[in-house]
């Protein structure tokens, strides 16, 4: 039974449970002549919740865990001898999975029966051609162990699915039935169902924690694996980034960090002055009319996906800088460059800086401005010498948040900065960043367990730590700043 149908059944039983619970409560009330503690609907609701929710949770957990367990079991069945020279266990496992799927397809086609399948032997039957018939193309003939593993995987999945169906149905009926039996006129059904709902609400808010745990653990786990096969010292302190397909790569993070830093610096040099001046102008000077046009226009910039900025860098800004500045000045001939990515990222960050600064500038009390005007200061003197110094911590926070955005930004640098890991100063040269390399290492064809792939996780962890640090610092500063004026 497929998971979809099973969940529909569970939900159906839940609905049924609602009406049964409600009916039972009502009939009990009429039979005993006593008043119900709660509205009849709550009796139905508690039965429905107990019927459906635990079963659905069980199913979700089962679906998540079953492949993990089966994989590890099947993995153990594959001897090292069948793993081809220079290949990887994960590739063999992928074959196993495909063969298992192919066998299912054969069954579905009605080509063979369960019994025939049991008889099939990799060394006798021509598995490869039969699988090809159902659309599973294999690169080579199937070793016996692999085929057995595939059969085992198929068998375990089937058993697992059956067990899950039974377990889920038992839990549904059991929990539902138990709640239904418990109904009597004194049962505090409203409190039960409300506490149940509250538990669900708490569960939902824990998703945020689970996400963080998921991020940190997946990054940490694979990073540790990476450092087992590649020395951490070389990763952090080497100035060479030169991944090779056939091992022996240099995977030093320094050129990537430098590129990230350089591009972000250019972006901030564009975004901070412009964004800040926009915020000042719109908050202190602009007439209502100008504000009503300019403010939404700037906000539109914030709603544009980064891929659009990336394309802008690729087809407009990059060629423009190359043709009109870099080449005439002899500074470079690449359309992707630090400056291209930095400028475009700067534009992307303008609305971010300006809206944060706008909030912060508006939080400076009017009395402060009045004090300055009262002494005969001009508006710009007031802004430069009173408002901005007062807003400084908040503005610093905003800049830090913008910096964290900049170093985590991916698409603009993928499309605008280039792929060459270099430690250079010329902003018209292509350089690369941490995020670019995460993308290229994880979308390449290298096998998963190689250092060339795993390094992406170490890069991801570095990125995560950097951005998290910047964010916490920025939020702390901004919060302190707000407290000052509250």
């Amino acid at each position, binding site marked *: 039974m497929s998971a979809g149908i099973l969940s529909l059944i569970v939900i159906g039983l839940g609905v049924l449970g609602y009406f049964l619970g409600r009916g039972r409560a009502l009939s009990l009330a009429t039979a005993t002549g006593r008043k119900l503690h709660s509205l009849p609907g709550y009796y139905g609701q508690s039965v429905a919740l107990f019927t459906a929710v635990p079963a659905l949770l069980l199913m979700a957990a089962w679906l*998540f865990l079953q*492949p*993990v367990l089966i994989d590890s079991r099947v993995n153990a069945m594959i001897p090292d001898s069948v793993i081809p020279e220079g290949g990887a266990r994960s590739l063999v496992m992928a074959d196993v999975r495909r063969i298992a799927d192919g066998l299912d397809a054969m069954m579905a086609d009605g080509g063979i029966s369960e019994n025939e399948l049991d008889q099939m032997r990799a060394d006798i039957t021509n598995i490869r051609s039969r699988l090809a018939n159902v659309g599973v193309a294999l690169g080579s003939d199937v070793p016996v162990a692999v085929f057995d593993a595939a059969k085992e995987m198929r068998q375990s999945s089937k058993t697992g699915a059956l067990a899950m169906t039974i377990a889920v149905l038992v839990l549904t009926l059991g929990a539902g039935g138990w709640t239904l039996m418990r109904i009597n006129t004194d049962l505090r059904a*409203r409190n039960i169902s*409300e506490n149940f709902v*509250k538990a*669900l*609400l708490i569960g*939902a*808010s824990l998703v*945020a*924690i689970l*996400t*963080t745990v*998921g*991020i940190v653990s*997946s*990054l940490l*786990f*694979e990073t540790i694996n990476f450092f087992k096969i590649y020395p951490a010292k070389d990763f952090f302190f080497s100035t060479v980034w030169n991944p090779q397909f056939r091992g022996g790569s240099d995977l030093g993070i320094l050129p990537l960090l430098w590129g990230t830093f350089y591009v972000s610096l250019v972006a901030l040099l564009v975004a901070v002055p*412009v964004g800040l*001046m*926009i915020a*000042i*102008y719109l908050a202190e*000077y602009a007439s209502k009319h100008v504000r009503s046009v*300019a403010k939404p226009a*700037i906000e539109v*910039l914030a*709603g*544009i*996906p*980064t*891929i*659009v900025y*990336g*394309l*802008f860098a690729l*087809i*407009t800004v990059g060629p423009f800088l190359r043709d009109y500045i870099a080449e005439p000045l002899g500074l470079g001939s690449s359309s992707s460059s630090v400056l291209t990515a930095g400028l475009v990222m700067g534009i992307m960050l*303008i609305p971010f800086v300006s809206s944060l600064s706008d909030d912060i500038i508006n939080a400076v009390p009017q009395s402060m401005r009045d004090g300055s005007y009262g002494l005969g200061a*001009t*508006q*710009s003197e007031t802004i430069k010498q009173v408002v901005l110094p007062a807003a400084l911590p908040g503005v610093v926070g905003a800049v830090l*948040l913008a910096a964290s955005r900049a170093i*985590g930004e*991916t*698409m603009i640098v*993928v*499309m605008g900065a280039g792929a060459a890991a270099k430690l250079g100063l010329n902003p018209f040269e292509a350089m690369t960043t941490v*995020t670019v390399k*995460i*993308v290229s290492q*994880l979308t390449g064809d290298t096998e*998963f367990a190689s250092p060339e792939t795993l390094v992406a996780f170490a890069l*991801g962890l570095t*990125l995560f730590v950097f*951005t*998290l640090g910047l*964010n916490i610092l920025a939020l702390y500063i901004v919060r302190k700043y707000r407290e000052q004026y509250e």
Partner: protein
Amino acid sequence: MTDFTSSPTGANGRRRGGSLLELDARTKRRNASEARFRLMGVIAVSIGVIALIGLLSSILMNGASSFRQTYITLNVFLDPAKLDKAGDGDLEKIAKVTTFGYAPLIQKAMEAAIKENGAAVDGLNAKKAAELISKEAPADLRRFVLANPDKIGETVEFSLLAAGRIDGYFKGRVTMESAQLDRNISPEQLMLADKLKQAGVLQIKFNWAFFTAPDASDTRPEAAGLGVAILGSIYMMLIVLCLSLPLGVAASIYLEEFAPQNRWTDLIEVNISNLAAVPSIVFGILGLAIFINIAGLPQSAPVVGGLVLTLMTLPTIIIATRAALKAVPPSIRDAALGIGASKMQSVFHHVLPLAMPGILTGTIIGLAQALGETAPLLLIGMVAFVREYPASPPEGFFDPASALPVQVYNWTTRGDPAFVERASGAIIVLLVFLVIMNIAAIMLRRRFERRW
């Protein structure tokens, strides 16, 4: 306390009581600096607005042409001698004829069309002339024949895609000069195209296929469409909506209405605000490690993309929902509690319905963000070349698919400049979706805006 004795004239002896009606030099200087500062503000705002205009116009100028496409209309004789050698109309046998079998039919039709319109160009043989037609055309023809086997033996009028370079010629991307250096096209072919256009054989039409066709290979930019990508994006948005709205609302209700002030609550709140600022690519790594490697979900599937985007969107929705809940005045809660409703009843019967417009607005904005997100989807394999439409949901959620922004990225990595046009066109489609969503959000806010 009368320890001051100096005169009010001041230490520096500045003249007091100067007339207000004339500006002293210092005031003039200060006013000039005021004007300069103001000008800087105007410049900054202009930079922002010009950047926006530049960005949009660059995309529009590059992409607008992708909504028109060059077609060549030919009368193709579906030769039974080639397509149905046995002559018994057996579909299986007809299906054995590959696209190579259809190419000669098109070549013949092309020859006929040139002769009929007197469009012959010197130095251009029939094979070269047929290269004006897209390599995708035989496949289209084959599909038609397999769908209508009874038409074999008849002459049918087809509107066939012109080759990418021909299309580019009419859109200004390819010129006679560039054609001389181009291995894929010759000036003679362009001359022929001009003549065919005059004869009305070659037309430029609205490019419906751009919205419905799947992606095409590197050499056939003219056939590449957004069908699979749009479908994939819609699937993902469905998943994001179905998961993040209930989860986000539930989490917000708990944090805003029920959570006690303690360390746990603080932890969750700090968590959410930090998650909102985690780079999107990190969510991609999460998706790859957890959903694909551990949970064994298929690569390139909308379900994985949907889950990753859900986790990304959740903080946005939670923050918006909490703001909406906070905006409902406490008097409403008090009123409900005052007549004996439970806390849960007051929230679900009164607060939540009142906060709903704000929640929906936040959700739409979160969805719009998710729709444009690219980086995490690259990592979970959605960048793969997918030509098959995913099945209908729910099975389709597990089929490989693409997504709009990823398709854009995918096209920009290809060599043929025609793909830049396609990518820009795809961006326009994406932006239209975003504009629609944002307008919906604004209308929702306007319609239900409430002042307490």
